């Protein structure tokens, strides 16, 4: 008959270590509880003493509507049609290269012919009439930006593209040139 050894707890063969005296004392005096409470108190005091309360030493979260995050430099967001800074005419020459480059086929360039007089002779020139950019289909690959010969079309770092309707995702020329209005929070 086998002698009855120490009682095993759990799976047979799995050794359960007996607690040492230090471990027992730790449990008895609630050392770990006190340590944990000290940690939370430290965070609490750190958050209270954090003066500017904006992702400082005590607060780690980003105060989003108040403070806008810095996005990565390679981030592509809302599209924009750049304008000549002096004359405020559009830089777009209606060459349609962006529409051809777009893998999602979300750009429509609508051009019109304008009669102009160059060196005394009447000529016809192709100018931009309307520019349709469907952001709901866009995958922000920025191939259109690469294709643009005049650096007119550009994907900016603006990321607030949500709207209340499906039609709101389709940006026309005015929206692309002026940018969309978003609420700016200050507090």
């Amino acid at each position: 008959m086998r002698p009855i050894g120490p009682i095993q707890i759990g799976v047979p063969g799995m050794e359960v270590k007996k607690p040492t005296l230090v471990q027992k004392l730790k449990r008895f005096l609630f050392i770990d509880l006190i340590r944990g409470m000290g940690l939370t108190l430290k965070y609490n005091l750190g958050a209270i003493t954090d003066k500017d309360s904006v992702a400082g030493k005590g607060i780690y979260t980003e105060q989003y509507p108040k403070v806008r995050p810095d996005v990565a430099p390679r981030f592509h967001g809302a599209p924009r049609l750049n304008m000549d800074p002096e004359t405020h005419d559009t830089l777009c020459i209606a060459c349609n290269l962006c529409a051809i480059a777009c893998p999602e086929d979300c750009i429509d360039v609508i051009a019109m012919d304008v009669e102009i007089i160059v060196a005394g002779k009447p000529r016809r020139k192709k100018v931009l009439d309307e520019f349709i950019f469907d952001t709901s289909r866009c995958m922000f690959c920025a191939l259109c930006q690469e294709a643009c010969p005049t650096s007119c079309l550009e994907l900016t770092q603006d990321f607030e593209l949500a709207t209340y309707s499906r039609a709101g995702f389709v940006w026309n020329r005015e929206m692309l040139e002026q940018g969309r209005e978003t609420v700016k929070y200050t507090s």
Partner: protein
Amino acid sequence: MLLFGPINVLNDLLLKFFSADTINYFVWPLIQIGLVVTLVAAWVAYATYLERKISAFMQARLGPMRVGPWGLLQPIADGIKLLAKEDFIPEKADRWIFFFAPYIAVASAFIVFSVVPFGPDWAVIADVNIGLLLVLAVSSVGVLALILAGWSSNSKYALLGGLRSSAQMVSYEVAMGLSLIGALMFARTLSLSGMVYAQGSDSIWYIVYQPAGFLIFLISGIAENNRAPFDLPEAESELVAGFHTEYSGMRWSLFFMAEYAAMVVVAAVAATVYLGGWYFPFVDRLEQNGYHNLYVVVSLLVFLIKASVILYIYFWLRWTLPRFRYDQLMDIGWKWLIPSALINIVLTAFAVFLVQALNGWRDMKTIEAVNQGLNLTATGKIIMFVTGLISVFITGALLSRINWRSRDFNLKTQRRNIRLVNVAKGKPAVEAVQQ
């Protein structure tokens, strides 16, 4: 003007309309009740705000910041939102019980404030001589509300939450009541104001005499209020929301209010019994200098600060500790808190006996007076403090010895029975029955 003397202005005004008796026994109490209900409701509302804020700080966030400066108007916005929400009653629910359960919860939490001494003189509604008993009795009616809510919802999660809360609150109530007896031996009264006066005349807080009692009261108070780490009845990860799963809108917020009001009750009672209530050294000089109402207001502030400190401990524990398992919860209640409360009673009685026996032995003076509670001299206080501190360790050591492996007690005998059968390794102890 009003702050520096007795309130004569209002009294004269009231005497024009009512008789003196009506004023003393009807008008003033009504005014006091109105004040206390307003104060407590505001306190409860801002307890929710503070809870969110403190939890945010402990998690390195900012918490509510949008409504008002620092989000200070958030409780009001929450209240309006909850009022505007749909008050939904499930089709198969027991309508009337479902309807009334939240009111029972709120009433049982708020009635207790009628005896809580917020301050001296006019800052307490009713100084009844069974104050502490009334607190324990009325606050335990809160369990009924939770059971009724869980039952009438006709939902399995609500019912499970109600069952859990009833088991938990019934088992922790015992420890809660027993832990207060130690302090009663010094105060020699059940009146809550009387306990404050007793501590004032002894110029000591009973937490010094009764560290074990305070700890037991605090732990069982947290468990009684179904707060984390003992929030089994409303464990989100297991029971959706416990007993108030089916509640919505204002009825739900009544439960919420009741929970916080019950927390404030426990904090107030703990502050009164163990932290000296509104008593604070040197504040009574204001009374001696004739600033009666200022004295009452300052005492009231002292009381609020003391209770708020205990509320902070509530929040602090909630955001530090994870939830207990259900068997651990019952273990702590029945195997640790109730025996340690009983041991505390015995040891405290022994200490009081020791102090009384030592009084007059070899010209030693330990007891000063026994007119308002047990007033001890410096020697007696030291003896009481040391015995109180030692009794914590005695209780802990004794109980950890008794409870050593108490959980695998049954398992132990079962294993031994199996092992006594002499079988070779690898074979089952009991042969499978051949069909």
